């Protein structure tokens, strides 16, 4: 692993995450967040994670950036299963099953 020093990231992320969690519980007290702030905070999850996944699924480093139909198919299947069943475990299971099949069939 090159680039960012590991312990710096762990300490920074640990401290930063704690401060986010402690923000209102700690000092800001019972003050309410304005509606515009809530409206933006609500979308942090769906705004960051899909964008992180897309390049990994489409151009995996493990194949040198070449699109692998099994990896891409597994990702799409996990999305479909998640949307359809509304279940975290089914989504993960469907994607893992497609990957395992791909690893078996080569």
């Amino acid at each position, binding site marked *: 692993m090159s*680039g960012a020093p590991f312990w710096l990231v762990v300490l920074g*992320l*640990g401290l930063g995450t704690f401060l986010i969690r402690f923000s209102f*519980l700690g000092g800001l007290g019972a003050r309410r967040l304005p509606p515009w702030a809530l*409206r933006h905070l609500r979308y942090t999850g769906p705004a960051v994670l899909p964008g992180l996944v897309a390049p990994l699924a489409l151009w995996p480093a493990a194949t040198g950036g070449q699109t692998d139909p099994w990896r891409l198919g597994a990702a799409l299947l*996990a999305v479909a299963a998640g949307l359809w069943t509304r279940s975290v475990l089914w989504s993960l299971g469907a994607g893992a099953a497609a990957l395992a099949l791909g690893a078996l069939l080569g």
Partner: protein
Amino acid sequence: MTPLRQGLRDGLPFAIALVPFGLLFGAASAAAGLSVLQATSFSVAVIAGASQFTALALMKDGAPALIVLATALAVNLRMAMYSAALAPHLGTAPLWQRALAAYGLVDATFACADAAFRRHAAWSVPDRMAYLGGVAIPVCLPWFALTILGALVGAGLPAALPLDMAVPLCFIAMVAPGLRTLPQAVAALTSVAGALLLAFMPYGTGLLVAALLAILAGAETERRWGRPA
């Protein structure tokens, strides 16, 4: 039933749902070259699966610390919302208790506490703290244990397994089942499109820009047409 016991009972199902994520985080850490101690420190310091996976993926990509931290912290910003929602219920508790509550404030503890505090409006502040502690025990402790187990077992897995997909699949499983509203879908699609189009930008900065655009797109969609998530 005491609030503590009730918390333990409500938190337990989450412990089961965490099993694959915790194991996969440990295994992905091992695959990225982290030691068992490093993987465990990660989970104990942060206890936020999605941001841990994010940081791991970006570090593996060679991104500089500032970009890793900014992107991984962006994933956790939603927890400010949790903190704000619980503050009126816990605001008068001693500082050390509130600090402890903040440390264990993850998606699962918030979801349980938010529901329970509405159900039991008569609970005292110590009751609420006891409940939160009860939920945090079966949610946080297994997260640490599973990370260790995953890091130990993951290092011994055969190289033919496409473990690089563990992280993307975990993220999909975290997000897809919860996509219910139009603004959420707009945010997710903007994020995907932005990340792919901006992939040429160095060190994950494209992702950061895409995420910001996606947050704005989701919020704007909600303001115009949507209902809140």
